[in-house]
């Protein structure tokens, strides 16, 4: 009874959407299967046919963005008569990838791309093809500080490295003073604050330190903080409240969560760059693609040591992991539509509003959509 009714409704909606799509986009008929992932307007059509459940899991850092996406996407699908439920379980990057590779979820969100072994293993659940990584959004990591009487700071990479490694212990250290000739730096202990939980933010931050200040930061890129003792906070909010709670504290956090704290400008080449969505997106633009990967497996080897003007190099790229091919046609279509939606300008804006991420550049977004079009179904 219910099913029949749903079918009727969706049939009616199909006709309606077809008409709309024709007038709105001047193409991309909804009747044509697998269309609708065309660069710009994600609402091209085909939403009315989407039914079933789509499950994703992965990075907890992407939770805000994913919640906003699933809600607005289900709203769009529902408005066109489709009946699709999309869920995202913030289990953490590692668990998300595991669940994806064992076929429990149809897509995964991850702070790191699949490695070779995982790619090879993915053919089992991906209809014989490999999984692909798609950049989902770019998240700038801000170096935040709480220092009475100082609102802005310029920090070269080796100074940040020295601070977090525990070698620079006073705010009036000559190295800090040299970069900040105008600031009135107090004779106060520097209190570095790190994340107490394992985090992609820590990994990307230390990756930046180990590449641009290898002498000052010798611990390499790590997920778990390597130095015993010291101030820390659980999660981004815990870290921020720890930095807020002290004087002379300095930490690193998702830029959107920095609140009222001071944000340091980072040295790139000869100038100091403050973080901005544009500068963060540029960091990905100047970075080369990781080598040895398929054409549609879009993974960046982030260039932390760039000297190009206006680039903010401390960024985290969050990836969406999907199959290169789906055996279940309905699921495949749903994944393609969802992926197209979240990487479209509209979806990126939703993430920027809800999670403070930097949107993908138009160029990258087009590339991603080409890769999504290449996903085969059935």
């Amino acid at each position, binding site marked *: 009874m219910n099913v029949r009714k749903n079918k009727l409704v969706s049939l009616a909606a199909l006709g309606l959407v077809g008409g709309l799509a024709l007038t709105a986009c001047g193409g991309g008929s909804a009747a044509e299967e697998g269309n609708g992932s065309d660069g710009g307007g994600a609402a091209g059509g085909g939403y009315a046919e989407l039914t079933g459940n789509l499950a994703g899991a992965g990075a907890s850092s992407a939770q805000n963005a994913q919640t906003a996406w699933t809600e607005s996407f289900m709203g769009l699908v529902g408005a066109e008569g489709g009946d699709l439920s999309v869920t995202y379980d913030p*289990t*953490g990057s590692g668990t998300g990838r595991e669940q994806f590779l064992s076929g429990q979820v149809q897509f995964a969100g991850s702070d790191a791309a699949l490695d070779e072994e995982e790619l090879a293993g993915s053919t089992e659940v991906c209809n014989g093809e490999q999984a692909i990584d798609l950049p989902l959004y770019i998240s700038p990591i801000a170096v935040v500080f709480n220092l009475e009487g100082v609102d802005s700071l310029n920090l070269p990479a080796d100074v940040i490295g020295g601070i977090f490694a525990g070698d620079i212990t006073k705010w009036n250290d000559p190295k800090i003073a040299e970069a900040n000739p105008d600031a009135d730096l107090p004779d106060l202990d520097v209190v570095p604050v790190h994340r*107490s*939980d394992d985090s992609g933010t820590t990994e990307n931050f230390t990756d930046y330190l180990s590449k641009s200040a290898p002498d000052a930061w010798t611990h390499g890129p790590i997920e778990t903080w390597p130095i015993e003792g010291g101030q*820390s906070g659980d999660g981004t909010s815990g870290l921020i*409240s*720890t930095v807020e*709670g002290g004087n002379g504290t300095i930490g690193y956090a998702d830029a959107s969560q920095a609140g009222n704290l001071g944000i340091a400008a980072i040295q790139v080449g000869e100038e100091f760059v403050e973080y901005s969505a544009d500068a963060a997106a540029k960091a990905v633009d100047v970075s080369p693609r990781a080598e040895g990967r398929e054409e549609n497996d879009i993974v960046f080897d982030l260039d932390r040591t760039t000297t190009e003007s206006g680039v903010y190099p401390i960024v985290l790229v969050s990836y969406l992991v999907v199959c290169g091919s789906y055996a279940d046609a309905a699921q495949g279509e749903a994944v393609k539509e969802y992926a197209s939606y979240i990487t479209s300008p509209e979806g990126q804006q939703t993430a920027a509003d809800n999670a403070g991420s930097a949107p993908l550049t138009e160029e990258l977004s087009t590339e991603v959509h080409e890769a999504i079009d290449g996903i085969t179904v059935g």
Partner: protein
Amino acid sequence: MSTTDVMPETPETPPPSMSSSRRRVGDAVFSYLSIGSGLLIFVTLALVAIFLTTESLPAVRESREFIGESSAFSLLETTLPLIFGTVLAAAIALGIAIPVSIGIALFISHYAPRRMASGLGYMIDLLAAVPSVVYGLWGGIWLVPKLEPLYIFLNSTLGTWPSWPGFVPLVGGQPVVALFAGDPTAPMRNLASAAIVLAVMVLPIITAVAREVFLQTPRLQEEAALALGATRWETIRTVVLPFGKSGVVAASMLGLGRALGETMAVLMILAPGATFSFHILEVGMHQSIAANIASKQAEASGTEMSLLIFTGLVLFVLTFIINALARWIVARSGVKS
């Protein structure tokens, strides 16, 4: 685990008594229901134990202790600092909470006017109903900055105590047990703050049980003490406290159980670290097992997850040992009175 021995018995429950053939149906149903409920506890406990054991096996199998390779992670090195932190935090919390609880319980049972006593008792029970995440928020945001001057005072005055040579073992010139020594930095997300909030959390449990025990003191004994000329304090010391001793121990053990397993409050207050430091004012030195699991499990997978579950098993066993200890103490002191 001895609990696993219970498993085979669970499906079949022995019929209670066969004597009367004219037993009512209600009797039989009720007796089976109650036996079933009793056994359910054992089954649940056994299932938890089985889960913890099987899930932690992968970590044990890949550990340094098992395969003998120095490159592998060490179970002991991971777990021992966590056990240390857990027990130290719980011990300090109890050290603060027990005297205060006994004071409150005595006030309610022997000093306060009846109407006030019942109101106060009600409030104490209410305190037990506050969720731990609320205590965590309160502790992390409000309490921690307020404690800062106290810690700095303790650190500057008692920081070197006790440093008498020969009395306390010295390591690197630093007295090991100098609780207030070290270098505290703001914000004070240290073990002392966590322990204070834990103390507030276990206070209601200990107070409630101790109050009930003190109220059970035989009226005649108390009156006899008073008749012999004892003051109120002397009566409490000679009659009420000895009578309630085992009850207070049992109450403390209940509180200890909560303090050991408390997660949210510790997670939200403590800036963790993994050392064996007794410097409770220093941040980034300690971590409790439960808070560590909560903080790490979101991003853990495979062996990491298994290792976390292993620490959970350790906490499970630790709680068992402490409970057994408590029962033994209560049983022993119970015989004496």
